[in-house]
């Protein structure tokens, strides 16, 4: 029996450690390539059991093997036969790769009915050129069937595709196989290396970036990624609220990433702006958070707090000043060429228009140039407001800054309440921040009231970390209820009674039990906490005995 622990989640992807006597080496990191026929002897007993993926429910019900040991076959047309801890197998998954639309439909059907703590085996599907999309869509176990077939066909496998065997002499690889002219060995090693790379990127939570690169050699991979992006509602829960490091928005699809859509969605549904009669639309800066850039220092000097500052940026759309530290606003990097394409413009203008329709300012001043200015004009037309312009180019120039400052001559200071904005975005609550004081060196800020610390900004993620007192002000949500024990270290799944389904990996949560309260970060979604049988659910920061 193979046991495993999921250590890292990245979207649908999973990485971790598995152990068991059947394995060639134990413990073994996954995603992994295995000689599955050896690891799962039950596989040899499935003669005549083939049920293709497109088979209808009645047929599948008759012929998909039941109680046939590990791995458990799951089929899109069938109810789930697997339980937590199973290795599950989607028979014939290698054929799905050629049908991106079906791939995603089947995947969703399968994921929705299979426990989250299962290992997914995709037989015969893995090649160095397909591993990225298989791992990205949640598969963790692979076999050598695909690469061995390519060897039999005389093809040299690389992450960029399969090439005639003479490519082995072209110096592309220095593995043991290539050094000995052994095509089959190279192909197996190339697969292992690519799986290791996907595992490494999953560990870094940067698999999306790898996929945005790798997929370009294969139209089907691109289509699978795009189809998944298109179903934001389904894909959203799998994405952590924040990833570490830079979010590279290096392709058109970056704008379709869950992080980017979620930022806009929460901006429009949760975020509460300060009371301000004037909004100034500002360009972004390469330096993040924007406030620390030279240009934004100048803007802020000119505005002098007399307007609400809204940054128009690609691919995020719109970032109110208070949210500039929130992931991914402080964390994205994008190639700058000055050209804003029509899709970018349409997407961002739509966000801006919806925002401006939602929050009516008496005046909206565009302190923009180029693509951002065009976007603002598109948005203004869409929502029927009239923009004022403090410049049309060189927003950082002296003249533009002077005009901006003059435009605000008669305006009163807006109450600067970064905390209120961040709280509304993070918890969807309108929390009264009266009397709260901030200290610290931006962006490492601590908020307190009556000398009692309430919140601090996690500069890695831009999220607010509430103290127990801070949680007292968050009226609802982001709670994990545990049974009557005192957590020692992290909170594990088996102790959980209830979890807010809004919880995403990385969210700040309050653990509530009869014996203790605890603060910490969710290591999985609320749904996963309830659907799993094991694993760390909350990484605890502080425990308070009751």
């Amino acid at each position, binding site marked *: 029996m193979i046991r495993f622990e999921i250590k890292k989640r990245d979207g649908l992807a999973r990485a971790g450690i598995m152990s068991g006597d059947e394995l060639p080496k134990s413990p073994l990191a996954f995603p992994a390539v295995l000689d599955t026929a050896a690891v799962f002897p039950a*596989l040899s007993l*499935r*003669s*005549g*059991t*083939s*049920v*293709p*993926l*497109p088979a209808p429910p009645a047929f599948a019900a*008759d*012929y998909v093997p039941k109680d046939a040991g590990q791995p458990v*076959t799951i089929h899109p047309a069938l109810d789930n036969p697997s339980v937590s801890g199973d290795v599950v*197998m989607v*028979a*014939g998954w*290698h*054929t799905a790769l*050629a*049908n991106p639309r*079906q791939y995603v439909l089947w995947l969703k059907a399968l994921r929705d009915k299979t426990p989250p703590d299962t290992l997914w085996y995709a*037989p*015969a*599907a893995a090649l160095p050129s397909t591993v990225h999309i298989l791992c990205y869509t949640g598969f963790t176990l692979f*076999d050598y*069937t695909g690469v*061995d*077939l390519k060897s*039999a*066909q*005389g093809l040299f496998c690389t992450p960029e595709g399969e090439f005639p065997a003479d490519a082995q002499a072209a110096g592309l690889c220095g593995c043991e196989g290539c050094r000995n002219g052994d095509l089959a060995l190279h192909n197996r090693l190339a697969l292992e290396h690519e799986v290791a790379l996907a595992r490494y990127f999953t560990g870094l939570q940067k698999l999306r970036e790898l996929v945005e690169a790798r997929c370009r050699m294969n139209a089907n991979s691109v289509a699978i990624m795009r189809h998944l992006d298109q179903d934001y509602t389904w894909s959203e829960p799998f994405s952590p609220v924040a990833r570490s490091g830079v979010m590279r928005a290096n392709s058109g699809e970056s704008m379709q990433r869950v992080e980017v859509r979620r930022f806009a969605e929460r901006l429009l549904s949760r975020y509460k702006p300060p009371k301000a009669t004037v909004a100034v639309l500002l360009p972004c800066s390469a330096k993040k958070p924007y406030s620390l850039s030279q240009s934004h220092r100048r803007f802020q000097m000119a505005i002098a707090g007399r307007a609400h500052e809204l940054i128009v940026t690609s691919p995020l759309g719109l970032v109110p000043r208070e949210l500039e530290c929130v992931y991914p606003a402080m964390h994205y990097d994008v190639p700058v060429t000055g050209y804003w394409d029509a899709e970018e413009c349409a997407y961002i203008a739509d966000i801006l228009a919806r925002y401006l329709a939602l929050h009516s300012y008496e005046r909206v001043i565009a302190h923009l140039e180029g693509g951002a200015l065009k976007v603002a004009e598109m948005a203004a037309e869409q929502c029927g407001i009239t923009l004022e312009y403090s410049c049309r180019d060189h927003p950082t120039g002296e003249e533009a800054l002077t005009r901006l400052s003059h435009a605000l001559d008669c305006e009163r200071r807006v109450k600067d309440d970064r905390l209120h904005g961040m709280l509304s975005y993070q918890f969807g609550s309108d929390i009264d921040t009266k009397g709260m004081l901030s200290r610290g060196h931006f962006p490492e800020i601590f908020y307190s009231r009556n000398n009692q610390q309430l919140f601090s900004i996690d500069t890695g993620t831009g999220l607010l970390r509430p103290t127990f007192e801070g949680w007292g002000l968050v009226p609802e949500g982001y709670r994990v209820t545990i049974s009557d024990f005192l957590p020692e270290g992290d909170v594990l799944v088996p102790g959980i009674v209830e979890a807010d389904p809004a919880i995403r990996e990385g969210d700040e949560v309050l653990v509530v039990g009869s014996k203790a309260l605890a603060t910490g970060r969710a290591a999985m979604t609320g749904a996963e906490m309830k659907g799993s049988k094991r694993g760390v659910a909350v990484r605890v920061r502080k425990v308070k005995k009751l």
Partner: protein
Amino acid sequence: MISEAPRKPLACWRGKERYNRGTVECLTIIFESGGCSWARCRMCSYRFEKYRARSCEELHAHLHSQLAWVRSEFSLDDFSMIKIFTSGSFFDPNEVPPAFLDEIGVVFRGKIVIAETRPEYIARDTLERLVAALDNGTHRVPLYCAIGLETTSDTIREKCINKGFSSADFFSAASAAHAAGAGVKAYLLFKPLFLTEAEAAADMRSSFADLAGRVEMVSMNPCTVQKRTELELYWKQGAYRPPYLWSVLSLLKDAPMEVTCDPLGGGQKRGPHNCGTCDYEIVRGIRDYSMSGDRDLIGALLETDCACKNEWEYVLTREQPYCMPLTR
């Protein structure tokens, strides 16, 4: 009977057939009949082919006019064998009015008639009557019932073909035919849906063994993807691959009896195929063998080399029910 002008059958062509260790001139006729009463086989595209007659008489007239067309277009003296297909069963009385069998008996008297049918329509008295009509002493067995047994495995026949009868049904029909003085020709289907290349080959081998000595003729059809079939739906989604011609060769080479084979669509992506390079030669060889019965030719072809042979050997050993087809 309503009289009708000659009308072309669905198809009709002349050719040669292997018979009795030699070849004979053969006329193949596909009649448009009342249509298959079963019409549920997964790979069959003929199930929609039927003549919608309002009465048995009208159907008979329709068949009669087709026979008239055949008689007017071909000189029947040229042929010693007549192969008759409908898109279903020639002996199904709902499909082919029994009175038409009498016409057949008259028209094709003195020839060998091979008529295709499902086993449930084999009734000893019907066959005896037709045998009597055909028999003028020229041939020892003037009538053969050709039955699409497809496989001797009931499991595979049910799951992969959905044929709706059992091996027992077949063998009892065969007994009835033999009792009526008719021969039996069994059609086998190599690689229906849901089987790996190796499973399909093994199925053929055991079917050969099961049939040896119990039927007069065996013909193996390597599966082809016909339009508007369940098989085609799977094929289009990459869930089915027709068999390799290499497999066909290896089966023919080792068969315990003489097995004929016409690899329909051979070398096409919808038919039995290898890589495209070696297909033409092999298809031609299989057709030649089906005429000559020359096993050495099959053996020699199986020894030829091609880049895809490795692939085939790999697929034979490594394709599994849970990961198939490995190739397209």
